[in-house]
């Protein structure tokens, strides 16, 4: 564990993980309760980044760079996903003139 930089060690891994969990649940709550689809989308991003944070922190504490590389991939995929998701939202908005997620229920089978 001696190759881990001092600056990182000033904050313990538990605190990183706690922050990550708090962020994740904030995102999750947002997804569950908010009606505006854009905010829901942002909450999904928060959840994604909470996971990223956790991975980076653990990677740093374990002295293994595989986690950080994985996070880079995740961010790239997330960027692609955002563009596709936003495009879908725009299309839905054009069709339904709303961003209220409950009104999408007319899509049910």
């Amino acid at each position, binding site marked *: 564990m001696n190759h881990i930089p001092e600056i990182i060690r000033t904050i313990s891994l538990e605190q990183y993980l706690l922050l990550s969990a708090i962020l994740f649940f904030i995102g*999750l709550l947002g*997804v*569950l*309760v908010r*009606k505006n689809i854009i905010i*829901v989308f942002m909450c999904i991003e928060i959840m994604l980044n909470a996971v990223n944070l956790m991975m980076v922190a653990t990677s740093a504490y374990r002295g293994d760079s595989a986690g950080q590389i994985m996070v880079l991939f995740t961010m790239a995929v997330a960027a692609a996903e955002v563009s596709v998701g936003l495009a879908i939202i725009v299309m839905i908005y054009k069709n339904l003139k709303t961003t209220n*997620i*409950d009104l*999408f*229920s*007319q*899509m*049910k089978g």
Partner: protein
Amino acid sequence: MNPEIILHLILWPPLLGFILNGIIGSKFPKWLVTFMACLMPLISFVGTMLAYVNLKDKKTAIELYTWFVGEGAAKVNFGFFIDNLTLVMLFVVTGVGTLIHVYSSGYMADDKGYPRFMAYMNLFMFSMLMLVLGSNLVVLFAGWEGVGLCSFLLIGFWYENLEYNKAAAKAFVMNRIGDLAFLIAIFMTIYATGAIEFEDVKDTIISGVNLNEPIMVVIAILFFIGACGKSAQIPLFTWLPDAMAGPTPVSALIHAATMVTAGIYLVTRMSFLYDVTPIAQTVVAITGCLTAFVAASIALKQNDIKKILAYSTVSQLGYMAAALGVGAYITAIFHLMTHAFFKALLFLGAGSVIHGLHGEQDIRNMGGLKSKMKWTYMTMLIGTLAIIGCPPFAGFFSKDEILAVVYSKNFVFFIVLAISSVFTAWYMLRMFFSTFHGTYRGSEETHAHIHESPWNMRSVLVILAGLSIVGGFAGLPEITGQAHLLEKFLKHAIFQKAFHVSHLFEYVLWAVTVVTLVILFVLTYKRYAGVDRKYTDANENYLAKLLANKYYLDEIYDFLIVKPLKRTGSWLMHTFEFGVVDKIVSIPTAIVQSGSFALRNLQNGKLSWYLLYSIIGLLIILLTFIII
């Protein structure tokens, strides 16, 4: 000749006729339907004659196969039996039956249900033949039910009319009451004697070994209740007048000549049982006398020509039952035979009148038909004279014999029957004079179209009239010095104790009969033959109203039985069915319904809820792992 072949020749042709006409009759041309329907009973009649030639004075049992085997030794054969009693019944059934089939071909020719009608008539013939030929109680019962069914089908033949259907249902239900008693009697017979064939039962009872008298009395009375249903005795007779809803040939064949005599036949067949149970005999005699009197008095005030004849049938059946009750079985069969002739004649004559008047049945609207319908007039005259017991027509000898035997047993019964026969003469002459004498009282329009019936109806009337004249000579009384042919013939089959009637009484009875009839003839002629306007019912007193309303018997039955039953049914429906049964049944539905209402919210189509569910599920799974 092989008895089995004769049996097949008698029994099956009407069934064949029923099947052919019933299934494909509507596709046949009318002449073919007529030909088949009339040929089949005729074959049976020929078979009967063959049976007479070959099998008379013998007891021939023919067992076709074992129908079913009951517990213990009770084995029921699909078996038949021919003795002299069967032969007499066969002659009546096939002879009169064939004639009525021929008559029907004229009477019903314009009806759209003609093939169906003929098919039912053939089925009736078959059932009746099975009834009289059966060698055991079960086969007899099968025929018994068969004639009941045919009676139902034929009373309700014009099924578009609701009233007719009700009459059919009434006949069926009333018969069912009798049938239940009959069925119980069969079971008890098997229980008490261990036998089911008539001959075996007879041997057991005559031998008298291990006989329990009270049980015998109960069996005998139950059999008689069965007979009451079929033969329209008090208290089960009200269906017969209503049965006049059927076409007139049906009334003649089923409700006068054959089916209603089934009960008389049954009691005669079981005569050995009644000989050992004097109590049951008394019941039979009292019922018979009451029926004869009540029905005859009701007939006095009826105005429908068929209703008058129906009540007279009930009354005559009462005479037969009274004869059975005093043990004069042969006399009863004698009257059964002559009655079949003249009552069929009267009904068919009435049918001819109705046919000629295009459906008019009320004698108040008739009159003066003498000149328009000569054949019908003459034959009806013979029929009327026969039924009122005018010498030397058929009814005279048989009724005279009944009166004589009843007199030798019980004076009260004799008086009741004698009064009934005065009533009989009165209502029959009233009907006759109102119909044929005087001037026509119906509408002008019908008057112009009154016509004599076609030849096939007329010829039947003539034949039956002939039989009504000569039928009585089969049973000449002792004082004529001639042999009683029927008694001689039936002695082989039925045991009947000798009746001692003094010659003096016979002479007096004859003289009184003739004098009374002459007086009645003159009285009724004066009163009814000259009527040229419609009768008015205005000056009727209470007694007349009571009679015209049939002693309110229908109303009493309605009040005592039908209404309470209906009320019970309605209570059961509204309180029990809707209140209890329905409630219990609806509990599972309520559970399923409310459950599904609750679960329906899960599937609300909202994404965030779905997400919540999956998260809850995930949490449950995780927690499970943690706890474990």
